[in-house]
């Protein structure tokens, strides 16, 4: 006798209780992530690289390579090419340079400060009220105070911070390699832990989590490539140096919502104003290009790439970005959406599994079968009654033989 189909499949949509759990779990995870950022960040980079390299590796496996050999080859090739590209980008620069990297950074910072001063002077000339407010001297004083103390107070911390992060980030290639080599095995290992009754749904859940993360990270990479190309084209047209490198850095910074975009814009303006110190129009042009690319990004590229990846309501997205920023700062801003996407899939599926009466009944039945099978010759009630058990003859023979041995 089969059950009614409605009972078999259970409720399809997650209710408010499940959604409250999803939001709470996401917030909790953000707090954990903030504490374990040294581990989580390499894990994120490792996962992104895993999804990038999975396709080539699968092709190698299908052409006859073992998983281990294919993972080694793909990782070696990728990291060699990435190191070469980085070395090329660092050595190829047509902008102004000093003898040391400290002096070059100083040169660019001075260029940025000079641009701010020129812009403020122009504003004061145009709007006398700003001159009366002594805007230039106020900002100038703030800049001087900050830059005078910068080397003593902040540069050391920044360098130490970077040096602390380098070993942690070196974990990323290792994680990528092991995810590529053992990812399938790990998935099977997880699936093996699931009881038979929930097995198909659990497989589907694992697949959906994988697909959500994959869609998000692939979307993010596509968005980065599009942003880089369009920004590089715009900067190249107005004559800013190293447009491709600047475009790439700004596009990667844009992974952090709001804050990253502002940081990218400041970087581009600093470079543009240093390239042409006497021509503030170039820096204004760079700002124009940046704003244009942001608009294209928000209204065209993002809906085409990331927007389709997570299927989250826009209102929930905006609210969660604010909550993420509040709970875990910049890290929260950056990671709240992928975390929400994954927790949403897990929460919705677990919600339907736990509330499905038929699956729960089947699971109870399977457990009862296993218990019965495990205790087939352990009928304690029968033993107490003195009735023969299935292994009673064996036990009697064994006790007789031990008795005989004792008599001997």
């Amino acid at each position, binding site marked *: *006798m*089969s*059950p*009614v*189909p409605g009972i*078999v*499949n259970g409720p399809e949509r997650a209710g408010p209780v499940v959604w409250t759990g999803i939001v709470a779990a996401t917030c909790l995870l953000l707090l954990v992530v903030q504490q374990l950022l040294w581990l989580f960040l390499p894990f994120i980079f490792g996962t992104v690289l895993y999804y990038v390299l999975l*396709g080539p590796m*699968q*092709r190698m*496996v*299908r*052409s*006859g*390579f*073992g998983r281990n*050999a294919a993972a080694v080859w793909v990782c070696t090739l990728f990291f060699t090419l990435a190191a070469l590209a980085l070395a090329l980008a660092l050595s190829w620069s047509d902008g102004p340079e000093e003898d040391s990297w400290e002096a070059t950074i100083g040169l660019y910072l001075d260029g940025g400060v000079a641009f701010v001063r020129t812009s403020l002077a122009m504003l004061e000339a145009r709007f006398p009220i700003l001159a009366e407010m002594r805007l230039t001297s106020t900002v100038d004083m703030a800049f001087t105070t900050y830059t005078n103390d910068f080397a003593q107070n902040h540069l050391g911390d920044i360098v130490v911070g970077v040096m602390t992060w380098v070993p942690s980030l070196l974990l990323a290639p290792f994680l990528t390699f092991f995810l590529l080599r053992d990812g*399938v095995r790990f998935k*099977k290992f997880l*699936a*093996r832990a699931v009881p*038979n*009754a929930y*097995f*198909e*749904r659990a*497989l*589907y859940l694992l*697949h959906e989590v994988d697909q959500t993360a994959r869609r998000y990270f692939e979307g993010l990479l596509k968005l980065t490539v599009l942003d880089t190309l369009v920004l590089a084209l715009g900067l190249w047209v107005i004559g800013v140096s190293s447009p491709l490198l600047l475009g790439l850095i700004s596009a990667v910074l844009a992974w952090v919502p709001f804050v990253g975009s502002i940081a990218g814009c400041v970087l581009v303006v600093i470079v543009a104003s240093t390239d042409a110190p006497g021509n503030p129009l170039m820096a204004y042009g760079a700002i124009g290009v940046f704003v244009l690319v942001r608009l294209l990004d928000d209204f065209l590229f993002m809906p085409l790439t990331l927007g389709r990846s997570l299927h989250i309501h826009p209102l929930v997205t905006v609210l969660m970005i604010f909550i993420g920023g509040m709970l875990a700062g910049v890290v929260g801003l950056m990671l709240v959406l992928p975390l929400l996407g994954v927790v949403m899939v897990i929460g919705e599926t677990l919600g339907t599994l736990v509330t499905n009466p*038929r699956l729960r009944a*089947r699971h109870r*039945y*399977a457990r009862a*079968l*296993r218990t019965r*099978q495990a205790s087939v010759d352990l009928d304690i009630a029968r033993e107490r009654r003195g009735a023969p058990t299935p292994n009673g003859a064996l036990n009697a023979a064994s006790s007789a033989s031990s008795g005989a041995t004792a008599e001997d």
Partner: protein
Amino acid sequence: MIFRFLKPPRMSPRLHRLKSSSLFSALTPLELKIVDGLLHERRYLKDEIVFDEGEEGQALYLLMSGRMRISRLHEGVTQVVAELEPGGFFGDLALLDNSPRNAQARALEPCEVAVFFRADFLGLMDTDAVLGYKISLALARHIGLRLREWMGTGRPQLEAL
């Protein structure tokens, strides 16, 4: 050493068992090894339910050992559609779409099954067209055979698999 990947992999007893199923009989040893990497192992006790009639299907099941009964509810009466032996497979329509199962599968004795998840099959079709085509052709032949049997013998329950 370098060209080791050109050598066909050795056929383990498990690969031989997979090859004996009509679904994978056309696959080469390398292709069998790739498919085997995607299969999940499950064990069921006597009387345990594998899936219910009406449940959303996500995977195909290949019987490696034991016997399985496929039954369905017809006008309030449970009809036994088939009893499968090792090498047989069931739930094959779930590889094509996620429509509800047409029958219930229950173990007649302790069973070991290999589970082929639909998303893995579709992924295989995307990335390895030849392998996907071979499995699809075997699946189409199997469904065609069932259709012919149904038309020839007038057994309405055979479409339930």
